[in-house]
């Protein structure tokens, strides 16, 4: 086997392999644009996070602006403390509210941010004070049954 031909084939093989990897990384997957260098962190506290998982998207107006970082349990206030990593490009006012929403009917949960009107903006390590917990299915059903029972009761 001629050495130059061999080198050529191996070179082509490696190039094809790298191209495949790039294809997978860019076209197939979503390179998280949110890594530590170009993001800032804020904390939001929830009574119930439902099925929210780390790395879930943080969206505003339906567009992904960040990712969920850690989720911790605060043993003193008995709340969930969720760290949100937001892309530095997007600034949010201090009175922005964070709600846990579900994509679709039974889909994955994400955090939706709705901007407030404050002139001051959220900075790194700030806290989002207005939060809305996840809707827990059992509570919903319970409320529905209770509601129905109330309707039917005065006979």
């Amino acid at each position, binding site marked *: 086997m001629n050495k130059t031909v061999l080198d050529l084939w191996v070179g082509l093989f*490696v190039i094809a392999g790298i191209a495949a990897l790039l294809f997978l990384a860019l076209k197939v997957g979503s390179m998280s644009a949110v890594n530590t260098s170009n993001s800032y962190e804020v904390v939001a506290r929830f009574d119930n996070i439902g099925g929210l998982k780390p*790395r879930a998207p943080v969206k505003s107006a339906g567009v992904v602006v960040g990712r969920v970082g850690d989720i911790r349990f605060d043993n003193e206030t008995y709340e969930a403390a969720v760290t949100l990593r937001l892309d530095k490009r997007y600034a949010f006012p201090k009175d922005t509210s964070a709600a846990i929403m579900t994509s679709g009917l039974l889909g994955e949960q994400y955090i939706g941010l709705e901007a407030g009107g404050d002139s001051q903006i959220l900075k790194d390590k700030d806290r989002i004070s207005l939060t809305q917990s996840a809707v827990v299915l059992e509570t919903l059903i319970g409320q529905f049954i209770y509601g129905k029972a109330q309707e039917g009761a005065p006979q």
Partner: protein
Amino acid sequence: MLRQSIENLGNRTIQGVWRIGFATRFFLATLLHSGTAFRRFGLTIREMYFSGVLSLIIILVSGLFVGMVLGLQGYETLQTYGSEEALGILVALSLVRELGPVVAALLFASRAGSAITAEIGLMKATEQLSAMEMMAVDPIARVVAPRFWAGVISMPFLAALFSAMGIFGGYLVGVQLIGVDEGAFWSQMQSAVDFEQDILNGVIKSVVFGIAITAIALFEGYDAPPTAEGVSGATTRTVVTSSLAVLALDFVLTAFMFRGIS
């Protein structure tokens, strides 16, 4: 009679344990003597041709077909729940997380792994390795280590090519043949496949598989009895052992990697 079988079993177990010890020493020796494989990278490149490039055809064709089947079967199932648009997600995640690394590894084991075992076994049987030793050239540095690194380097590329071809196959069947919306196919895929979680983990898996398969193939060849039956038995053992190793490692790695999601 029973006593004889127990004795045999005991014997075989001891042999097995001894063999594993020997294999581990061999693996460590390969790593230690890898200097030549990198200083004279031409040797490794040559082996990448024989292990990687010559496996391309089977990897690309299999990848294409696996992707196409995923597209077909996936569509059938998703249609029942009205979620045909998730076909892209199904095909991409199955391939990138599991099928790409695992099936590519199994194919690599049968094609390249068995070739390596046969080649080294025959070199041993025809005393070529002995001759090399007598010429003051360490066969582990010159023959074994380059093949090892060539396998480890080739494997992730092959797995990526498999996944890429598979996704293309799924695209062909889903979008072109069946008529799933092209935009939905790609955009849903993009939003569901995460680079670090899925793609990087897939690459890590394929590297680990590459190490396992090549190490097993080299050891079986080096340890093969220098006869015709010896070499053919070693080749079979390579394919069986490395396939089982790949599947077992896949379970372990998947448990590690994807448990963290929740």
